[in-house]
């Protein structure tokens, strides 16, 4: 589950996929996760970090993570 390497993210939460021409906007949490994924952190590290800083249960985060992966896949932003 790796983010495609050439995905361009901008400070104000925009994502541009140069391979397809698609643009996306994301909320704050999406921007954070993208940043973390781009920096090469593992899934576990990212989750641990979010759990330590945000008001969210582990089970909620796990289920949202699965949904997040589906969104990225649907958006064609993951390496296959």
């Amino acid at each position, binding site marked *: 589950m790796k983010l495609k390497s050439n995905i361009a993210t901008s400070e104000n939460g925009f994502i541009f996929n140069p391979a397809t021409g698609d643009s996306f906007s994301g909320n704050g*949490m*999406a921007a954070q996760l993208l940043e973390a994924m781009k920096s090469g952190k593992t899934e576990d590290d990212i989750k641990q970090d979010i759990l330590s800083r945000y008001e969210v249960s582990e089970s909620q985060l796990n289920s949202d993570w699965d949904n997040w992966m589906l*969104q990225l896949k649907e*958006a064609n932003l993951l390496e296959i």
Partner: protein
Amino acid sequence: MEKLPYEKPYIKKLQAGALNKFGSRTGLQPFKSIDGVSVKSLIENYGSPVFVLSEKQIRKNYRAAYRAFSTRYPKVQFAWSYKTNYLNAVCQIFHQEGSWAEVVSGFEYRKALGNGVPGNKIIFNGPGKSINDLQLAIEHDSLIHIDHFDELNLLLTLSKNLVNKPRVAIRINMDTGVYPLWDRFGFNYENGEAWSAVTKITGSGSLQLVGLHCHIGTYMLSADAYGIAANKLAELAVRCQTELNHKIEYLDLGGGFPSTNTLKGAYLPGNDTVPTIDDFAEVITSALLNFGFANDDLPLLILESGRVLIDDAGYLLGTVIANKRLANGKGAAIVDFGVNILFTSFWYEHQVSPAQDFAAHTENMVIYGPLCMNIDVIRESINLPLLNPGDQVVVHKVGAYNMTQWMQFITLRPAVVLIDEKLRTHLIRKNETLEYTAEPELVPAHLNNNK
């Protein structure tokens, strides 16, 4: 250290499309209470899902409608359309306000009697009255609105040897320029059928023709059609007077006024486009006032409004069961109420509001009910914030038809709660139980395992 508030991660594709009717609907606000009673407490006390009715809103609607007509026309009577919502508590509110009862079956007729409505204040409509029903209505001196010649002939037979002649009206269908033309109910105006029914009744000597009735359609978005209908009824009444020397006491313009729900396929929302009750009142009353009846000889104007008086007083509260992402990437929410209790979702795009605060991001999604049936879709496309399982939602403007057309299917029908004018809550229909649904069932001995 205090933790930061969390929101689900979410990305949205930036689309470029053309202007068409499937615009996003935003302007969302959390809807946390009804008449000051919190949604949360209602669900806590009465379960989820639950229907909630506002007595304050019902009375307000009735009074506004009555005022709209009575300030323009001297003789006005409303008759509550039982089929719209015949929960006894609801009917009693309307009867307290001065409404008669308008019923369309023996079942509804008996319900009205049970609610203490005097027989002469019950209007009996509909194409399906049985001999027993008619006899009961004759005994109670009710106003019988005849739908077809077979019913008329039956009534003539039943009334042959009666001292008190039954009071009847005929239902008339007509071309008022609206689509579709409802020609399945009553006698046609244009082809002369209505006139021959009139002459047959007045000539019989055994029935009193007291009224003329029409009901030109449902969810009428043009007031003008009612002007045409009022004119045609008035014309017929005057013809009765001049040709048959017979006075028609009342004209019943029926119902069909829309609520402000948005119809499926409509481009603009109902809130903006639906004519107001004053628009309808203006057209109908000015048609009658200008028709040329002598001033002290105006017929009584009867209205059988249902939907417009109660739709926006009803709410359905429910709970999100789960979220899903469909194969095409579209979001979906599953809620705990289905189309079996929200029939109107087949023809309205019901407004659905979250009942708690939410994050700003919205997503276009489908709302599914809990039934294991493909047709169980509450909204095919709606923009809502990301909802969590357990979140509560409110469906608006569900007071008309749902609490009568609902059916017990797969799940049990929920409770109905009334919030009175002093903001007290009352259970006016209990939620169904397994025992309630099993009560009428019988199992033959050879199939009975519980001996």
